[in-house]
């Protein structure tokens, strides 16, 4: 599987480690709601089809990515950086998104 890292380009999945389902809503760190945390930690759906996942480019730029792919066909639709760098695309003429 190849992952289109917005920083490094199309790279082999062996350079990444997976961080699991990116659609899960993680409560804020100061949210003491045990049930919401339990859902975020333990509840996992097993979706068929389009799915978003966290992948960490550990042997590359070390950015955390959100990769959209299909769990049935394994097709990778695209990837964006997580968090403040979400709009960044290497080589794209942009006014540098990310932390100021």
């Amino acid at each position, binding site marked *: 599987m190849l992952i289109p890292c917005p920083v490094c380009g199309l790279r082999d999945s062996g350079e990444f480690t997976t961080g699991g389902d990116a659609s899960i809503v*993680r*409560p804020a760190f100061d949210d003491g709601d045990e049930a919401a945390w*339990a859902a975020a930690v333990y509840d996992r759906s097993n979706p068929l089809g389009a799915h978003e996942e966290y992948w960490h480019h550990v042997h590359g730029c070390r950015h955390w990515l959100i990769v959209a792919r299909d769990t049935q066909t394994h097709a990778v639709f695209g990837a964006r950086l997580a968090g403040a760098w979400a709009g960044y695309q290497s080589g794209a003429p942009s006014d540098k998104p990310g932390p100021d």
Partner: protein
Amino acid sequence: MAGYRLAGGGGRVDRSKVLRFRFDGETITGFAGDTIASALLASGRLMVARSFKYHRPRGVFSAGSEEPNALVTIGEAARTTPNVQTTMAEASEGLVVRSQNAWPSLNNDFGALTGLLSPFLAAGFYYKTFIGPFRGAWMLYEPIIRRAAGMGAATREPDPDRYEHAHGFCDVLVVGGGPAGLAAALAAGRSGARVILVDENAEFGGASVLDTATIDGSDTAGWVRSAVAELAVLQNVRLLRRTAVYGYYDGNVLAGTERLPAGDAAAPRERHWRFQARQVILATGAMERPIVFAGNDTPGVMLLGAALAYVRHYGVAAGRAVTVFANNDAAWHQAAALAETGITIKAIIDPRDAGPEDSAKTLRAAGTVFYTGHVVTAAEGGKAVSGVVIAQFDSTAGNVSGGATTIDSDSLLVSGGWTPNVNLASQAGEPPVFDSGTGAFIPGTPREAWAAAGAMTGKLALQSAIESGFEVGVETVKSLGFNALPTTFTVENPNQEVGFLPLYEIPSNGPGKAFVDMQHDVKASDVRLARREGFSAPEHLKRYTTLGMAADQGRTSNVNALAIMAAEEGRPIAEVGTTRFRPPYSPVTFGAIVGRATGKHFQPVRRTPMHDWHEKAGADMINVGQWQRPRVYRRPGESVEDAYIREARAVRNSVGITDVSTLGKIDVQGPDAATFLDRVYTNTFSTLPVGKARYGLMLRDDGFLYDDGTTWRLTETRYLMTTTTGNAAGVMALLEFGLAVDWPDLKVALTSLTEQWAGVAIAGPQARALLTKVITDIDFSDKALPFMGVRTGRLGDVDVLVSRLSFSGELAYEVYCGADFGLVLWTTLLEAGEEFDCTPYGLEALGTLRIEKGHVIHDEMDGRTGVHDLGLEKMFSKKKDFVGKPMALRAALTDPGRKRLVGLKSLDGKPIRAGAQLVTGSDPNLPGGSQGQVTSMGYSPAVEAYIALALLERGPERHGETLYAADPVRGLHGPVKVCAPCFYDPDGSRMHG
């Protein structure tokens, strides 16, 4: 003696280069370019193997990777390779080849007696029979049965050869170098696209060798030569011979193994390829299909096309009195071609009324007798074909009629039509679909970016195969944005006829066995048995009979088995369908998969800057993750235990040093660094003064303990975090996740410094005196550098960072410097410490010292324990929020009934084993249930007893109880006293002094 070398022919052999190899001790002579099979055939060897289950005599059946029978073991000692197809393996000078599955010899095989028992040995026999008389009886029988059946045996010696991994990136990967693949590669290569053309054979050309056409004025061999020559000079084209593509994976990744020719000692033995292609052209061709009849596995029965390939490639004839059994026009052309080389074709047997007239004319002229409307009902002979039994065939009723006639013959060549090779297409596509033109299956719709060309799509005729290769090649490169050049070619005098009568099996009521899958000894009757017992779906048929599961992946057997099942079911073959084909299509050696990652290259080895010193000092090194750390520095005559007790005593009595360079070190910087650390640690770091360190605990989201370590505040906005050796990478990834996903607003930068800093811990009552001698710019008095204080100083010219930390419970410091100066720091401390008898100590002493203090490491923080379990509640801030807090507070994790940390003291003077279970029963046979387990242990010189840390149900409430540490695997069951986890200096006066 059936086969022999012809005077002429043999485009692949060099008759000027004679080579000799050994087969079962006998010298076989061949020529450079021969396969083992062609040389054996030329020498007249008929029987070359014994079959898997019934030990039936078997000979060479094919000329390619479909070979089910002629498997041998090649090489000797450590280079022994079992189950090699003689049809694929090239002969080389001095090669040692041995037959398999025969004892005492191939000719007189004791195991062949199993053939007499064959009425009882049908599919599923063993599993049905050997189930009793008691539970587990199968375990008793299995090794004996497995020994009787089987293939070659692998060597137990380490493989001395080298294997490589290679990556092939290209615009177009063409799999299969027959006429269609060559045409596709030419079309793609001429456009400038990056092309890789792969073929499993030693030479390109595929089945074009079977056709007598001329292409652009050359014979087929000449056309192949010029196509390969053109491709070879194109800089954008790579040609890979001897490379079997065995798997088609997601994202247009394909895998293959390349066998390097023998003789080049510098080359690897095999190269594993991982292809990444934008587009793939599958041109995997078709393989000739046998017909199932009684005795169809007798040595001397061979595929017709294979016999012609042996003539054309190697100048080898299959026999002197040849009979042909075929159901299609192409077979008549091939028979005619054989006759033209001077081979005597005694008879041709065809269930149809007539063959194609032009070839019939040639055959008639050569004296061949035609038995049209006939079929072969049996091959007679046993160890070699001696006669062919034929009978009239009613093609409308599909059965044999009339009496049998026997034709004396030493060789029976069979052609049941051609089976497209759909394996790779099926791996990356929808199920194959039935094609009536070939009576077999062709590729379904692609699921990856591939297109199929040539015979694998049912286009068996040479001209249509080349045409489709060019077409698909052009379309493919156009789709990738390349300019394809127009291509023309002229084929003259090709074998155009495609007349074909589907015929898969000649049913027989006689005693002879009719084999469908010869490699796994699956008979036509086994397919019928499977159906009677309810296993009629292809996936069930496969698993029940093991059909198609051998190393040849059913290349010659799948379609015949499905046809027999379809006939039994009274359904069309199309409805029965195929199994799903899965990788690997060809066997892959472990060597190729492993590549260079073996022995000391198994994984990267990480060494500290002081590593060489440790080794020179005679330390026993131990792996901690990828790191190598000293375990003990044994002196002559010392056991491991003697050594660590001496080292631990030295720390308690004077001073010792230990290498802590492996600890994870992360530089945390930025205006929000303090806020960030407050969120990831259970305790507070924003209140930590500059120049102080604090021990911190990190939880996972689920509230369980993840890691611990000290973090030092270097400036207002900069911290140095240390992690455990094993978790350094994991902690870094977790921190990066927090910043990327949870708190993108925090201004914090993280840098791993683990390998940039070397570290030494100095522990013991004389630690202060020692450091005062060697480090300048720091006042080491308790007031100036209190417990947990952090200072910068100098060791000679080297900048150092010093923190007063203690893991051992003694007065202790950690000193860090740039990795390049680690050895200087280490040796300077040792030299200056001579007056204090400064002792280097390893992990074992470190372990015993920390167990005495009740300090936990990953043995206790094993991912299943929380702060509450390990008595670390004091570290759990109630004033602030942090990762994992809500889940750590849930009732299940704070339940007092959980297993919690305790100390144990051995009451019988024997070691307490880590992993032992804590039970109440004193009798090893009546232990009662486990109430906990021992996590770490050692001999404590301070307590003068074996002590341990353990996790025990309601542990803190049970101090003073006597329990038993049960280790039934080692036969240990010793009494232990439960106590507080801290055995030594509980008020900490020593480290605070």
